[in-house]
């Protein structure tokens, strides 16, 4: 393929950038005098001593390594830390826009107290002392009244050591309620628990895989740890070593990930599970699966009999009877020959990996769909091996034992689901029903569930009823607007930063970095405030947290890291290779001889990691009742019985295609929210750098856009760039339509991250697609789902 393009095309294509500059009709002389009048418009940029300091990105859970240039007291540039194993000097646009968050005009300037009502707040600036005392006194009162368990902490971006500190605080204080924001990845994690018996985070050895089937996972648009993904992608396609990995993207929309993949397979939305099982059909009928692995390491492939002699259906007969090639082709809309070819390629190339780990969640029944995709990994023998699915190694820190056992369950338990889990999305219901017990106080840390959860409105209502709400936040966002006290949180550059192993990354990583510049506007690190509150509370809470500040806690943690006698400080790629060679043969060559040296080196280089070899530890990878990968989940069967339900049909414990949503009369189009890299995780809308680049393929900037197929748009009489209404049964929103050939004719897409109503006016543009979605929960694990809402689109 070459890049055939002529000048006319070029101008048309590049119009997004620069057509506005080509205007004529002004005389030279006129411009000259015009220009002279402006000569005094000079911007003076102060100088000062230059410094480069390591830091950790705070804008997504990955925690990439930063190298920050400071001139005097100003931070002027963010670059990648070349020593950081996750990012290796590369960064995504979000991290680079971090300076705009640091210098943002809409940041909170002081702690605020609401002197009005919850519904119409009146904000008054208060001192830090008053703010901390207000929160601490409230907590002391609750504890004194035996209501400690009614305190809930909601963490936004989860970190490692900071989260441990908060958990330690809560357990000493007497609350079991450390809650984190849900992720679409919970569905796949559930499947891994059901089939592998592992509840630790999974990771993927993408670098060594040779064939990757991604079932709608937006690999290049903010999934997992985005920079490490892009790095791996670059390595797959390195000109020097040859292109040895094929990457097939399976999804309804022609996303940027699909465009950059080696092949895009479009399918009917929500039928990924059927397609996966159809591929399993091919692998089984053509004998292309790893027979030894399936025989020695899996359970429930063949039909089997239980101890009571009852016959059960196996995976093979399920697939052969219900997911025949032609049926699957019809179900999914994928040509049979494509399924056949891709499945054969998957079978012939080892190690092969099937990825069903969506970040944006899908249909109710998502865990079943994830089991279907994950079963392909078992057929390929790609579990616990190089190039396959791994269990992320644990960091060698001790989890603090609760100083006393807390006799209360977590408030967000999902007892009505078969699979008892915890779901933050369930909190509003718990608050409003006062079950299992009343929630007395909600503390939020950089979390904005009102904006970023599908049931945000329910959250708003619930928080209105909560007796006490406090938020640690950099901006006065939608959720902070509901607080009694808002405590301004600094950005990552102004505080001690740390991050554990990034999502889906196959190595244990602990980043640590000191503040790069002094905190603006008197903002204070939440961890320090927590320690101060602990001191205020005194007694066992203070005793559990004997640290002057977060730095002291980090130092203590590094001692544990040293004691583990493994791993290495961040270093160059060469050192990495060297350490890996040594490590593989059982040698450890630290550059430090005590915890103090380790601490200093970590601060200087950004952190510590273990480039250890993870494959081949079967006991780590699989911990099911049968000690095998379970096509037929005995865990699920056990839970079903424990929930007092009839086990019934065997198919309830085998992978399956979930039921598809039906279009209601008058709502013919399916709305699929999408994630775009600049606003990955639905965050970043308040930063101009990111607004400018949000939708490059459709020239969209500063506003949400509705992606609609040109044929569909034509039928509805909608032109490109026209304002239209998108209406679901829940509500409607006005957005600009963008005709995009990559949208399926019966589907429309809206990007996540738009439509703020508070925080910064820059973010308050466009529409939040979550506000249009009908509330749906997965029946198995109670996960909130975002796929399956139908809408109508009409001109405004």
């Amino acid at each position: 393929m070459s890049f055939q393009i002529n000048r006319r095309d070029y101008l048309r294509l590049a119009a997004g950038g620069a057509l506005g500059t080509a205007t004529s009709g002004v005389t030279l002389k006129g411009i000259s005098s015009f220009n002279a009048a402006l000569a005094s418009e000079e911007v003076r940029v102060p100088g000062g001593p230059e410094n480069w300091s390591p830091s950790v990105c705070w804008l997504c859970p990955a925690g990439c390594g930063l190298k920050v240039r400071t001139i005097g007291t100003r931070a002027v540039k963010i670059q990648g830390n070349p020593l950081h194993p996750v990012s290796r000097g590369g960064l995504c646009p979000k991290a680079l826009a971090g300076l705009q968050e640091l210098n943002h005009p809409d940041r909170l300037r002081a702690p605020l107290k609401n002197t009005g009502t919850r519904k119409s707040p009146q904000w008054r600036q208060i001192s830090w002392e008053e703010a901390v005392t207000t929160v601490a006194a409230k907590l002391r009162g609750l504890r004194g009244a035996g209501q400690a368990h009614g305190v809930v902490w909601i963490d936004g971006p989860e970190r490692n050591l900071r989260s441990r500190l908060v958990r330690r605080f809560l357990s000493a204080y007497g609350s079991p309620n450390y809650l984190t924001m849900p992720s679409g990845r919970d569905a796949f994690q559930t499947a891994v628990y059901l089939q592998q018996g592992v509840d630790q985070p999974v990771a993927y050895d993408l670098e060594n895989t040779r064939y990757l089937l991604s079932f709608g996972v937006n690999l290049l648009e903010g999934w997992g740890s985005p920079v490490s993904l892009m790095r791996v992608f670059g390595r797959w396609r390195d000109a020097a070593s040859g292109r040895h990995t094929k990457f097939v993207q399976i999804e309804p929309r022609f996303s940027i990930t699909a465009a950059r993949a080696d092949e895009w397979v479009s399918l009917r939305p929500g039928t990924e599970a059927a397609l996966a099982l159809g591929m399993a059909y091919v692998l089984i009928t053509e004998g292309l699966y790893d027979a030894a692995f399936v025989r020695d390491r899996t359970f429930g492939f063949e039909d089997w009999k239980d101890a009571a002699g009852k016959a059960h259906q196996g995976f093979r007969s399920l697939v052969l009877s219900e997911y025949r090639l032609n049926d699957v082709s019809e179900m999914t809309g994928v040509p049979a020959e494509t399924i056949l070819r891709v499945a054969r390629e998957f079978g012939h190339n080892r190690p092969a990996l099937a990825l069903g780990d969506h970040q944006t969640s899908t249909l109710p029944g998502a865990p079943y769909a994830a089991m279907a995709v994950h079963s392909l990994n078992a057929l390929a023998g790609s579990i616990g091996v190089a190039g396959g699915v791994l269990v992320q190694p644990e960091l060698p820190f001790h989890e603090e034992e609760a100083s006393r056992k807390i006799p209360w369950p977590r408030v967000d338990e999902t007892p009505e689901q078969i699979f008892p889990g915890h779901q933050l999305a369930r909190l509003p219901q718990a608050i409003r029903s006062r079950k299992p017990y009343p929630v007395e106080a909600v503390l939020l840390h950089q979390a904005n569930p009102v904006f970023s959860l599908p049931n945000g409105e329910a959250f708003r209502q619930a928080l209105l009823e909560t007796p006490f709400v406090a938020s640690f936040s950099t901006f006065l966002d939608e959720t902070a607007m509901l607080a009694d006290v808002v405590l301004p949180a600094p950005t990552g550059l102004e505080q001690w930063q740390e991050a554990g192993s990034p999502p889906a990354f196959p190595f244990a990583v602990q980043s640590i970095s000191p503040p790069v510049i002094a905190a603006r506007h008197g903002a204070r690190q939440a961890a320090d405030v927590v320690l101060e509150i602990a001191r205020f509370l005194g007694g066992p809470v203070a005793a559990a947290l004997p640290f002057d500040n977060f730095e002291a806690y980090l130092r203590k943690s590094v001692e544990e890291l040293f004691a583990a006698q493994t791993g290495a400080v961040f270093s160059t790629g060469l050192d990495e290779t060297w350490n890996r060679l040594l490590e593989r043969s059982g040698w450890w060559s630290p550059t430090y001889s005590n915890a103090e040296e380790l601490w200093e080196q970590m601060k200087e280089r950004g952190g510590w990691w273990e480039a250890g070899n993870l494959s081949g530890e079967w006991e780590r990878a699989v911990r099911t009742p049968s000690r095998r990968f379970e096509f037929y989940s005995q865990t699920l069967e056990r839970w079903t019985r424990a929930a007092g339900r009839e086990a019934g049909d065997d198919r309830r414990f085998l992978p399956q295609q979930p039921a598809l949503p039906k279009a209601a009369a008058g709502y013919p189009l399916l709305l699929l929210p999408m994630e775009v890299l600049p606003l990955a995780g639905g965050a970043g809308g308040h930063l101009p750098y990111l607004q400018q680049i949000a939708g490059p393929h459709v020239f969209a900037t500063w506003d949400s856009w509705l992606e609609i197929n040109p044929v569909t748009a034509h039928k509805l009489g909608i032109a490109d760039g026209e304002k239209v209404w998108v209406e679901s049964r829940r509500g409607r929103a006005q957005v600009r339509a963008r005709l995009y050939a990559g949208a399926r004719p019966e589907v429309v897409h809206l990007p996540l991250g738009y439509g703020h109503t508070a925080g910064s006016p820059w973010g308050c543009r466009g529409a939040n697609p979550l506000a249009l979605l009908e509330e749906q929960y997965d029946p198995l694990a109670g996960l909130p789902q975002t796929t399956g809402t139908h809408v109508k689109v009409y001109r405004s």
Partner: protein
Amino acid sequence: MQPSLSAAQRRWKTPALAAFLCVPLWFAVLCGTATAQVRGGAYFLPGDAKAGMQTFFDKGCARCHAVLGEGGRTAPDLGRAPGGHLSAAEMVAAMWNHAPAMWEKMRAQHLPPPKFTESEMTNLFAFLYSVRALDEPGDAERGRKLLSEKRCVDCHAVGGQGGRAGPDLKSWASYRNPVSWIQAMWNHAQPMEALMAQRGVSWPQFQENDMADLMAYIRTLAPASKGHVYLRQADSEAGRRLFREKGCVACHGIGGAGGGHAPDLGTRALPRTLGQFGGWMWNHAPAMWASMKAQHVARPQFSNQEMADLISYLFAERYFERTGNAARGRRGFEEKGCGSCHRPGGVGLDLSPRRGGGGSPIPVATALWNHGPVMLEKMKERAVPWPRFATGEIADLLEYLSARTNP
């Protein structure tokens, strides 16, 4: 033959010390420059192995060759091939023999042969020598079979199943280094030996990667919570002391000292890796103990770090082979046709007495790369075949060349 420190070594160790970043103990080298410090002592592996790895990647060696899987895949993995232990001289021989074929391949790919300075070559050799001694993760499937073949399971349980006489091998799963295993076995050998004799189980013999394979298998059974236990950087200087203090030197000769009752560890062929060497120690243990009993020497006990130090010392000692014979080398020099060009007034560089040039592996390897392609062309013109060297021949040649320059 028990020569003292040979002339060749004396001649080029001294400048090596002065000129290069000399890290004394090869395991200190192996474990990076950060902790390396120059210490006195006679046992040197000149060069900086990590800098050598940099050279390996920078000069493009890694485009085709890998070392233990790191690097290209179109040429042999220099961490594994050729098998067995190679001294510096044998590494030169291997390089020499394959050079014309290699240059041909490079020409086909439009890659110019890289040139090296002597210090780069010193580092490169240090790197290759160090890496070749590393054990690789074994083959779990093979390990599973070995466990029953070697009758380990007769006495040992593995994850609860098997014999009860010995400890459950699962408890060793966190050990990542085969040397740790050997050490543990060694120290517990006495009761083990007695029990085995009683049960009529023969002393197990470990070949090649048996130990690593066993470990790989046990690791698949390891309880998930256990961490990994590594060995710290070995210290071959400490190993040298241990060799004396633990009484090894009483029977084993090395470097021209000691020995008599047991194989000379300065000349006996070595396996490729440290772990494999540990396996050998184990294999010979009963014979060794019998002999020790006869000599009234106490059975030594080692901590696992001591075991690592000791083995690393033996390997450091064997970087330079002492087996070269100047007379054989002289014959080779003439028979292989070197002498027809490399003589006073000849086409090639004069390698006659006091002209320098030969004498040690590093300058020969450097010259091979820097002048070899031109030399090959000249030889083709004259229809002189490219000489090949069998095991030991290069060592003889080097001995001869250095003897001539240092009469």
